[in-house]
């Protein structure tokens, strides 16, 4: 739990030891950039919700409402050449690393021109040239794969650092444990952000583990673990910066436990009927965006009109992106056949019942093939 109530934010943010933050190593431009990423994250998710209701988003979507600061603040500590491996609720981190809202919209609407070509959902894309490793649905697996990326960076003597995210629920998987244990044993340059958002699907995190403090679970791996107010974008940034520096100087993995809260249900269909309203209310007061806005204004880094300008720039950008995406088609059906193997000749053929150009075969024709004695009739 964050140590102080929202009022603390009326002062310059505090460092993790509770002292007043030396007015941050970040410039005003950095702070405005962080603010913009926070706005972008929340707004894109809202647009996606609308598109979902309109039947344009295919499948489902997962919101990060209330957790945006964790994703944004941590990813902001990375440098060019670093790698990011986000979990499902880390949209903000993707924006920080250069993914555009348009790319996200294309992806959720299963468009031909999306990063996966319509073949996979949500943020399941991997783009090595941009240092991105996407997750797959089975939880815990991604970290194991990121270890391989980190191993390669280390073997090549490159300076890159890998950052990844994991829900506290996902930390219960065997894969997560194996991944963390291996990263620690091989001293890989990895930063793991454990997003303790109190819920895993419909189950409270307190029922998922007997630990009081989720930092304890990181201690098992013999690496430094720190706890941070995940709703304080600057606190997250600071912790991430330290961890990234540590990884970059090849002193190994760090685990950052971000204390935050999942303000909406697991996915769109989850109405949160088991969540007490008071609990939501208490965390609403800690909304990471409103807190950061207040900080920017009170500390004089920006003003309400300045923030409004960022907001409307974001809105305008998204209007255009949504408009653009509306006209994008789904992939051509037969694209389903491609890209299974590295050798296209091994990709599956058009099914024997179908014609290559579309439609189904004329039975009389296929019949000539595969006969020893010619047609029987």
């Amino acid at each position, binding site marked *: 739990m964050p140590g102080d109530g929202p009022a603390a934010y009326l002062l310059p943010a505090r460092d993790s030891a509770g002292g007043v933050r030396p007015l941050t190593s970040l410039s005003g431009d950095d702070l405005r950039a962080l603010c913009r990423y926070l706005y972008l994250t929340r707004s894109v998710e809202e647009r996606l919700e609308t598109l979902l209701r309109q039947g344009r988003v295919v499948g489902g979507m997962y919101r990060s409402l209330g957790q945006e600061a964790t994703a944004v603040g941590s990813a902001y500590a990375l440098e060019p050449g670093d790698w990011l491996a986000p979990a499902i609720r880390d949209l903000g981190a993707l924006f920080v690393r250069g993914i555009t809202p348009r790319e996200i919209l294309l992806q959720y609407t299963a468009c031909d021109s999306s990063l996966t070509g319509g073949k996979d959902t949500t943020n399941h894309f991997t783009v090595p040239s941009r240092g991105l490793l996407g997750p797959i649905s089975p939880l815990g697996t991604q970290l194991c794969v990121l270890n391989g990326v980190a191993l390669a960076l280390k073997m090549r003597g490159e300076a890159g650092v890998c950052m990844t995210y994991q829900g506290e629920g996902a930390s*219960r998987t*065997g*894969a997560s444990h194996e991944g963390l244990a291996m990263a620690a044993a091989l001293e890989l340059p990895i930063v793991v952000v454990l997003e303790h958002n109190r819920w895993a699907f419909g189950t409270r995190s307190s029922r998922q583990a007997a630990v009081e403090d989720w930092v304890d679970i990181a201690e098992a791996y013999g690496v430094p673990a720190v706890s941070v107010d995940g709703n304080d974008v600057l606190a997250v940034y600071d912790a991430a910066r330290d961890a990234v520096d540590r990884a970059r100087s090849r002193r190994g993995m760090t685990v950052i436990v971000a204390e935050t809260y999942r303000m909406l249900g697991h996915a769109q269909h989850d109405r949160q009927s088991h969540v007490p309203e008071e609990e939501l209310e208490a965390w609403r007061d800690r909304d990471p965006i409103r807190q950061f806005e207040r900080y920017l204004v009170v500390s004089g880094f920006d003003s309400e009109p300045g923030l409004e300008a960022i907001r409307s720039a974001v809105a305008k950008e998204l209007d255009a992106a949504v408009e653009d995406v509306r006209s994008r088609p789904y992939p051509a059906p037969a694209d389903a056949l491609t890209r299974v193997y590295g050798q296209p000749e091994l990709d*599956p053929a058009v099914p024997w019942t179908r014609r290559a150009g579309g439609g189904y075969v004329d039975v009389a024709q296929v019949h000539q093939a595969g006969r020893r004695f010619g047609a029987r009739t």
Partner: protein
Amino acid sequence: MTESPIRPAGPGSSPPGSCFRETTYLEAIRETMWEEMKTDNTVFILGEDVAVYGGAFKVTDGFLEEFGPDRVIDTPISEAAIVGAAIGAAHMGLKPIAEMQFIDFIAPAFDMIVNFAAKSRYRTGIGASLVIRGPFGAGTRAGPFHSQSVESYFANVAGLKMVAPATAHDAKGLLRAAIRDPDPVLYFEHKFLYRRVKEYLPVDEELLVPLGRARTYRPGSDLTIVTYGAMVYTSAEAAERIAAEEGADIEVLDLRSLRPLDTSAIVESVKRTGRLLVVHEAPRFGGFAGEITSQVCEEAFEWLDAPVRRVTALDTPVPYAPTLEDYYLPQVEDIVTAARWLLAY
């Protein structure tokens, strides 16, 4: 695939009286667990979000309140440990029903199932009477990890049983049989059918469908289609179309159980029709059709008037975009085309 409600052919298609209730496939599963837990207090449920939340598909909604936290257990996200706990509890004489939130997530429990659950009786004489159930199958635009058919991963593993009901009736009857079965049963529920399939089922009767018995979903004499899961409906639709358009009479055999496999029903049908088409939703290469084909070759080769053929999904992961997923899955037209081919052979 059909988008409208599916009313399976057979006795449940119209209300036969007041002691029948319209039941969805999902309700059938829910009711069976409820009934078995009522009558046998060794039955219990464990899995992710099954208790407080009532299950990702709300299959176990209200169970916690009725049966208490000892018998409806929320676990951490740990499929291996879920299956492991089910095995241990089964060794103690309990009857665990372990839920996989999506059947795709059975993969992390693969070792526990294949090496512990399946081999326990053979190795030590101590069996593991347990059910592992979860939603499988495509058609819901859910992408590569919430759409898989996993039967082939387990088909070569002696010691396991596997069922895949297509109707609410069989969802009930097979689940009851699975719970009472002495061996580990993988119970695959087709999520596309959850709320689409509706049937009138008897309220006071204890439906029980023995494992290992296929059902003739649609009788016919010119060609046998062997299938299971949601493909039963796709196949039946193709059969109707062929019947209407060219009068040929296709038999659709719904396997219901994959292991034990009802070889004699398959062979009997093929001996009558002389032609066999196997349809499944899993990819082609290494799919379950292979076993069926082998068995038919061994037992009814001389009765085959045409090659055994397959209509299956593509040899790819399940793609996400609707255009791709539709192309991936066998469609009614594929089956019609294949049937025409076989009939004309």
